[in-house]
């Protein structure tokens, strides 16, 4: 991290407003103390939900046989989730049942992630641990239910905890790991991946822009303003990168959910 020199510190004592973890733990602004308290991130999340409902709802209610340009784009996304994510991993026969779930996860996570680069919101709606955790728990429930439905409880647990073709002494080590993998590691890794990506992305962009603002506006030094401009360029690039990461993480969340559900199917084929 760049350490401002002593002269600069004298010129502006308080330094740049660097982002901190307080950004992700905002104080409630409505209904404090009740289970329905709303803080900034939840407000962003509600806003994002309303946007999804409005935009996609209007698109769906106006959907025609011959698509307009926007409807074509939405249909392209739906086709992408169905063909490139679900059917690619599971095949059409198994996958048909899970298309709605994966589509919901993909579109919701995508829009929530993109809130991080929308001016005014500036924080991803998935940037508290809870939202990714809820998605991950949904996936967990779905793959447990699928496994029990497709194989029955005991055959499913046997397949997961005692993988075939392993010499039995190894089960002493393997079974606890498999158990953890099944119930903890899969959902937690899904959660952490999404959450940490959003946190890191926000911190990177915010640090860059804070330094840009500091060097250009607060510090009255032409040469350091040049540094501020390059910080701003970096912030710009990182914002674009954040958009890419938002889409990539939505895709990865969706495809990993699909993969986990697919693993619950019997392994014969």
């Amino acid at each position, binding site marked *: 991290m760049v350490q401002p020199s002593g002269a600069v510190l004298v010129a502006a004592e308080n330094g740049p407003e660097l982002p*901190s*973890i307080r950004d*992700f*733990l905002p104080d*409630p602004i409505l*209904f404090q103390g*009740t*289970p*329905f*308290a*709303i*803080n900034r991130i*939840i407000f962003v*999340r*509600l806003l994002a*939900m309303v946007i*999804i*409902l409005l935009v*996609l*709802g209007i698109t*769906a*209610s106006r*959907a*025609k*046989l011959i698509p307009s340009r926007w409807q074509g784009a*939405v*249909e392209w996304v*739906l086709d992408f989730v169905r063909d490139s994510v679900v059917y690619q991993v599971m095949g059409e026969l198994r996958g048909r049942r899970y*298309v*709605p779930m994966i*589509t*919901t996860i993909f*579109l*919701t996570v995508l829009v929530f992630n993109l809130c991080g680069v929308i001016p005014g919101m500036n924080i991803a709606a998935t940037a*508290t*641990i*809870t*939202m990714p*955790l*809820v*998605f991950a728990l*949904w996936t967990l429930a779905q793959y447990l239910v699928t496994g029990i439905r497709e194989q029955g409880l005991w055959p499913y647990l046997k397949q997961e905890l005692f993988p075939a073709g392993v010499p039995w002494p190894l089960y002493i080590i393997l079974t606890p790991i498999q158990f953890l993998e099944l119930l903890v590691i899969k959902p937690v890794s899904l959660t952490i991946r999404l959450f940490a990506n959003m*946190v890191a992305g926000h911190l990177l962009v915010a640090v860059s822009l804070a330094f840009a603002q500091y060097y250009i506006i607060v510090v009255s030094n032409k040469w350091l303003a040049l540094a501020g401009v390059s910080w701003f360029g970096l912030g710009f690039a990182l914002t674009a990168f954040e958009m890419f990461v938002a889409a990539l993480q939505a895709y990865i969340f969706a495809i990993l959910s699909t993969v986990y559900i697919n693993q619950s199917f019997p392994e014969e084929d």
Partner: protein
Amino acid sequence: MEPLAANGGIKLFIPETYDIVWSLIILVILGCFFYKFFLPKFQSIFDERSAKIEGGIKKAKEAQESADQAKKKYEDQLSQARVDASKIRDDARSEASRIISDARTRAEGEAAQITATAQRSIESQQQQAMVSLKGDVGSLAAALAGKILGAKLEDEDTQSKVLDQLIDDMAEKTHEG
């Protein structure tokens, strides 16, 4: 700089109650929206579209088939007409040749008949001429001979004998000539 953990970084990973509540509410609302409204709507659109496209393809196929049939019918008619035309032409040609040959035989027959008639009339005239010539030549020759011979041919008997011999000689000469 202090470690972030000392600032309560661990709090980041501990879900708040109200956060859980709102996340669940939002997820349920969005889930209902996608499951009950959005995806069925688009699914029906996709189905309708594929049905329409299939219907269009089927219709096009039918049109193609009927066009093929019409073309086949037309071609059949055309070839039939062609066969008919060539048959008519052949018939006409054989008819014509028959007419020509008929005419030719009839003409030949008539010609032969005319020739025969002419021949016959010539012969009869010749016969006539011969008879009259015989009479004339006989009297002429008798007169001539009477003049030449004079008295020698007084009696009727001798005269007739000589005359016959003369005519025979002439006839022989004529035949030879």
